């Protein structure tokens, strides 16, 4: 059920990411200000965008779960959030590397996107202890969905708030992604973003399939044990 279309999706992901890497290193020009370091931006920013999208998607799946009571939506929500947290680690790591390379420190508070991402990341890290400290599976799923919805609504609010706070310092590089990218950089960025989106969906489907199979297996084993 979940693995439908997984193979072509994975193939598309591989092709897109390879294309993206090629574009990054052989096509996109070096940035006038930052030089070669700016190449990090093609992996850091798409990861951030996809992770934030994943968190919001987790919230949407959670709404569907609460409305329908169908636990498969909860599974989709859990995997989306889980994947986004992993991507989040990558965002913070690549962000730190960029900060160190550009400004000499492993962390800077001037980048509102990075700072608001840290807050979001800290919040979603609570998902696991909250989820796994509730034993009853129905309640666990429901409470996790409530969390996912509240946290999903929080993501844009937090972004706005941090941006407002930081607007008193000069907005830095990451804000560039908004508008003024020259054409060849923009193409590279869009391909990288597409690759990251496809990667997320592929891994999401992959984990859903594995988890679902594992759950089916548990049911089968219990039934075999009862019959024996």
């Amino acid at each position, binding site marked *: 059920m979940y693995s439908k279309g997984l193979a072509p999706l994975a193939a598309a992901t591989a092709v897109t990411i390879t294309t993206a890497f090629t574009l990054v290193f052989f096509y996109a020009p070096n940035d006038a200000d930052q030089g070669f370091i700016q190449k990090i931006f093609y992996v850091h920013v798409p990861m951030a965008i996809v992770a934030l999208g994943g968190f919001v998607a987790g919230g949407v799946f959670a709404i569907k779960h*609460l409305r329908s009571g169908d636990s498969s939506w909860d599974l989709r929500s859990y995997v989306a959030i889980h994947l986004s947290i992993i991507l989040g680690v990558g965002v913070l790591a690549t962000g730190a590397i960029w900060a160190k390379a550009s400004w000499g420190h492993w962390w800077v508070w001037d980048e509102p996107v990075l700072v608001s991402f840290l*807050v979001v990341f800290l919040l979603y890290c609570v998902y696991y*202890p*909250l989820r796994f400290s509730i034993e009853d599976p129905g*309640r666990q799923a429901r409470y996790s969905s409530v969390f996912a*919805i509240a946290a999903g609504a*929080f993501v844009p609010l937090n972004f706005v*708030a941090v941006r407002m706070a930081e607007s008193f310092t000069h907005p830095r590089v990451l804000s560039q992604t908004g508008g003024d990218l020259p054409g060849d950089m923009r193409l590279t960025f869009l391909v990288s973003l597409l690759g990251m989106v496809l990667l997320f969906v592929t891994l999401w489907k992959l984990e859903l399939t594995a988890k679902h199979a594992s759950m089916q297996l548990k049911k089968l084993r219990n039934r075999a044990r009862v019959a024996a």
Partner: protein
Amino acid sequence: MIAAARTILRKDLLIEWRTKESVPAMVLFSITVYVLFHFGLDRDSLDGELASGVLWVTLLLAAVIGVSRLFAAEREQGGIDGLLLSPVDRTALFVAKAVALFLFLTAVELVAVPAFGLLLLGPGLGGAFPELLAVLVLGNLGVAAVGALVSALAAETRAHELIVPILLLPLLVPVLIACAQATEPLFRQEAGPEDLGRWLGLLTLYDVVFVLLSVAVFDFLLED
């Protein structure tokens, strides 16, 4: 719904009035934190953004204590099960708890804010009113709504005292940002330009989102 909310609220306020558990502890905590900041920062008086930051961080940390205790009465006397079985409207429960938390926070601030003015604030509180009031009210509203939600979310987990702080504080970052930025010009030595509108706007947006969200979602909590 209003009647049910009022009943639950009255019960909570009565319990707090009789036992005097949460509010005095929160007040004591706030003043202790002021002392800690005095030693930690090695400063006799603060103004501007430092004052603003210390005040709001202290109030938020005190709020964590209040949120942890919000469902304590139900939990300790086994009342949670009673609440679950009774056909109480979840919206009424949310409203009651949120209003209770709002009132507790207000009570704490009646002491903690003047204490701050006394102990640490250089310029004195007079210049900060009445704008400070608006910030406090809107800020408390956000904390109350999110606090009630978080308290319910953590109510039945085994590790709720651990979960509440790490869950509540990131969620309150926008409130902290707005309140601190709004009061910063109010605490300056010389009156500076104030930018209250945008921060009050942010607080209002936050309050609206989380009140609506909590009301919508509360039905799925604390039920069996």
